[in-house]
């Protein structure tokens, strides 16, 4: 990849983090918890995006970010009060900023009219008394009377250099006006001398002195004097190394912090000296040049209010998922660190203090490399198992050196595997943080009031799973607001708070990740659901169904309850699509609903799609793997504990309760007739929903870690089977899908209903 392109990719990655920080900060402000530090963090996020965008010439983004930043700066300075209303406006502005970032990236478009209107609104907030000169009034009629130009503008957005100013509110002149205003108030002591000595790295990172100077000129009139005395002869010139230094005389009524902020992005890549008053050029340049290397250490480049940024990387890295990798990097930077080094890592992220460890990944690695590593470790695990098996076949004593060495190898392999998996594990936060915006938009569109409460954002799950969480969650949230929540009037009439609450939670449960989306709305209208299913010919009208079965009808293909196709959920894709995509991931989705109190969708997915701890069992001559996470205990049933139930079924008495007995061989079709349970071994398993069952197998071989090989990818989905694996002896074994097996059996009848009928896995 082109070097600059690569930097650009990094910039957009950082943008994503920054936008998330921005939104997090704004949400805190909206809840009234925004202290000065939050405002600062929010400001830095926008400022960083603007700076990076400037370096790549992404004009529309820069312009919008500038207006946004100006308002935030005013909030920071206290000239605009930090109110809840303001936070709401800022949140909408952050949505538009996110659109600009996406557009700059070539994904999606910006609604330029909305952007212009928002910019005008932001300017209005910045200075309510200002007669909104050119911008606002011009923009409004344009939008109102001629909606047509808007789409034309959208296309132009991609090419930043194009003259897309037509509908644009903020013309660069605004800045000049500010500068002149500053000029007027000038008092002589507001003269600064800024010595800039760029390092080669500054240019290599696609930063530009010209931009720094231009940025400085926004603070007030500048006069730059360049010193090219270090410039080699043309033939000896390294064209990519920095030789020229500048001394800039700046007149501004801003303080030193504002000047330093201009250089925020080039921390460490540029030696800087700021002195008040007219500095002699020679003197300041000499000051910079003299202690050639350690300048960065002497010079606290990080602006005063920001030591927090430098602190986190030094704070305990233990929690970070990249902990194994991180220390190396950490060590490379001496702790007391040249602010340069620390800031280089921390500054572009402007991570707010409240974000815990996992947010601060220090190394960016191409995911493909990690995937390859994980594949290799998988092979290593298989290989190690084969080796152990061979050794076992030779009848070597378990206490022998060889056997003990092998044990150690197994443990090491295990540790490597855990560590590698930990590298790829990420908190679900990256998906969750996109949701508040979705909720705001959907609520706006449907005229409902909704508040999103999120829980368990730091729950970690493998990256491969995370990537595919977004769509189902988006869909479930849309569904919850559009179909679940009532309108504010209905809610008031029902004696509820007009603002509905939608809860999004993630948690770990029995080796899987569970995502819950619940609302406090009206619950599923079962009569209507049943009616629609009948009308659409999905079920027979005389079918007797339990409440749960009716609820689960919404997962049937072709079912859509929206009477008219709404903008929000009625897009021709129903919950059946969600269910299918979840199933493809080896997950399950279920619903529980209480009329008048709301519904809960529960989505459960494996934590990783790579490895699994399992119990290897023998069933009708086949080797199967039962996920260890599902197994509660294994036992050999006594004859008196087995009780027949109905014509074919039987239950097992385990302590004080009865659980259905399921013969795995029969359910999967390995055999026609099941042997008596007392001849085999019983695995007491617990399903997703907490229901228990007793699986009958012929024999247990032992516990093993297996590498999951997808059946869907290599063959096709098989009911009752989650995936396949390769055993130590090279044979392929199927991994049992415990829940699906229980449900298969349940559907065939003969087994009693589980103790908790409120939750039925929709299979």
């Amino acid at each position, binding site marked *: 990849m082109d070097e*600059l392109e690569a930097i650009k990719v990094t910039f957009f990655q950082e943008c994503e983090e920054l936008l998330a920080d921005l939104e997090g900060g704004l949400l805190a402000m909206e809840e009234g918890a925004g202290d000065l530090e939050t405002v600062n963090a929010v400001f830095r996020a926008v400022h960083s995006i603007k700076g990076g965008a400037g370096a790549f*010439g992404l004009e529309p983004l820069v312009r919008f970010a500038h207006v946004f930043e100006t308002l935030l700066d005013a909030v920071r300075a206290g000239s605009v009060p930090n109110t809840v209303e303001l936070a709401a406006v800022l949140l909408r502005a952050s949505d538009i900023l996110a659109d600009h970032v996406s557009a700059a990236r070539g994904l999606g478009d910006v609604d330029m009219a909305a952007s212009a209107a928002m910019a005008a609104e932001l300017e209005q907030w910045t200075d309510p008394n200002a007669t909104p000169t050119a911008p606002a009034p011009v923009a409004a009629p344009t939008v109102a009377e001629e909606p047509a130009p808007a789409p034309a503008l959208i296309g132009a957005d991609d090419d930043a*250099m194009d003259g897309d100013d037509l509908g644009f509110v903020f013309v660069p002149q605004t800045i000049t006006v500010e500068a002149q205003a500053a000029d007027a108030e000038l008092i002589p002591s507001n003269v600064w001398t800024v010595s800039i000595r*760029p390092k080669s790295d*500054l*240019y*290599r990172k*696609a930063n*530009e*002195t*010209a931009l720094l*100077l*231009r940025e400085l*000129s926004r603070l007030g*009139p*500048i*006069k*730059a*004097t*360049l010193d*090219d005395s270090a*410039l*080699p*002869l*043309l*033939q000896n*010139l390294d*064209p*990519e190394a*920095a*030789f*020229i230094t*500048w001394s*800039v005389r700046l007149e501004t009524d801003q303080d030193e912090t504002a000047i330093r902020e201009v250089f925020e992005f080039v921390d460490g890549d540029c030696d800087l000296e700021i002195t008040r008053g007219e500095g002699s050029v020679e003197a300041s340049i000499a000051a910079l040049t003299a202690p050639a290397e350690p300048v960065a250490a002497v010079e606290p480049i990080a602006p005063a209010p920001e030591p927090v940024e430098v602190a986190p990387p030094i704070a305990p890295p233990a929690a970070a998922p990249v902990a194994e990798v991180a220390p190396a990097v950490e060590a490379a930077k001496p702790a007391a660190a040249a602010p340069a080094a620390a800031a280089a890592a921390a500054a572009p992220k402007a991570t707010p203090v409240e974000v815990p460890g996992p947010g601060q990944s220090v190394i960016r690695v191409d995911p493909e490399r990690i995937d390859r590593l994980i594949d290799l470790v998988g092979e290593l695990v298989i290989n190690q198992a084969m080796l152990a098996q061979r050794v076992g076949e030779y009848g070597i004593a378990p206490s022998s050196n060889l056997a003990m060495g092998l044990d150690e190898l197994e443990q090491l392999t295990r540790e490597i595997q855990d560590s590698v998996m930990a590298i790829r594990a990420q908190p679900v936060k990256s998906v969750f943080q996109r949701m508040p915006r979705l909720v705001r938009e959907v609520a706006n569109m449907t005229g409902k009031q909704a508040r999103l409460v999120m829980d368990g954002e730091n729950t970690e799950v493998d990256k491969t799973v995370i990537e595919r969480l977004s769509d189902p969650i988006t869909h479930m949230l849309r569904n919850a607001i559009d179909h679940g929540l009532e309108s504010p009037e209905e809610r008031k009439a029902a004696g509820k708070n007009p603002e509905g609450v939608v809860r999004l939670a993630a948690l770990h449960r029995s080796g899987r990740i569970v995502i819950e989306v619940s609302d406090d709305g009206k619950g599923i209208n079962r009569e209507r659901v049943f009616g629609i299913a009948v009308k659409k010919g999905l079920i027979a009208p005389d079918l007797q169904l339990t409440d749960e079965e009716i609820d689960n009808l919404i997962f049937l293909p072709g079912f859509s309850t929206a009477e008219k196709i709404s903008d929000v959920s009625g897009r021709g894709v129903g919950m059946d699509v969600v269910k299918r995509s979840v199933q493809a991931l080896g997950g399950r989705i279920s619903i529980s609903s209480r009329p008048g109190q709301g519904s809960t969708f529960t989505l459960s997915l494996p934590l990783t799609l790579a490895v699994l701890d399992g119990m290897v069992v023998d069933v009708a001559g086949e080797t199967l793997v039962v996920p260890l996470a599902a197994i509660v205990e294994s036992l050999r049933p006594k004859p008196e504990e087995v009780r027949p139930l109905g014509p074919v079924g039987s239950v097992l008495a385990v302590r004080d309760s009865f659980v259905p007995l399921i013969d795995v061989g029969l359910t999967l079709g390995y055999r026609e007739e099941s042997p008596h349970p007392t001849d085999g071994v019983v695995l007491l398993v617990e399903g997703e929903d907490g229901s228990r069952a007793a699986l009958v197998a012929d024999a247990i071989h032992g516990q093993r870690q297996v590498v999951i090989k997808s059946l869907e990818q290599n063959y096709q989905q098989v009911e009752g089977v989650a995936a396949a694996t390769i055993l130590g002896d090279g044979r392929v074994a199927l991994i049992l899908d415990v829940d699906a097996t229980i449900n298969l059996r349940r559907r065939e009848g003969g087994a009693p209903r589980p103790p908790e009928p409120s939750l039925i896995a929709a299979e």
Partner: protein
Amino acid sequence: MVAAISLPENLDLKTAAPLKAAFLERRGAEIIVEADQVRRLGGLCLQVLLAARKAWEQDGHPFSIKGPSEAFVETTRLFGAAGALLPTEFQGAES
């Protein structure tokens, strides 16, 4: 003999090396640098231009910049390099 160089639109990191090479090739004769296309001028290319101007001065050959674009003039002034690079009529107040 008069050589000419037409500066590209974007004088950034990537242009610096080719620009230097282009100057070196044309050394030893009067040169006219056409700057009418320039939309962006970066610090590295500024260095090449300054070094080239010095080199031509040393060789005793004329070095001139022709028809500079607005962006070129503006950025050169910003850099404080107007005196060294711009034709006299553009050497107004440095902003």
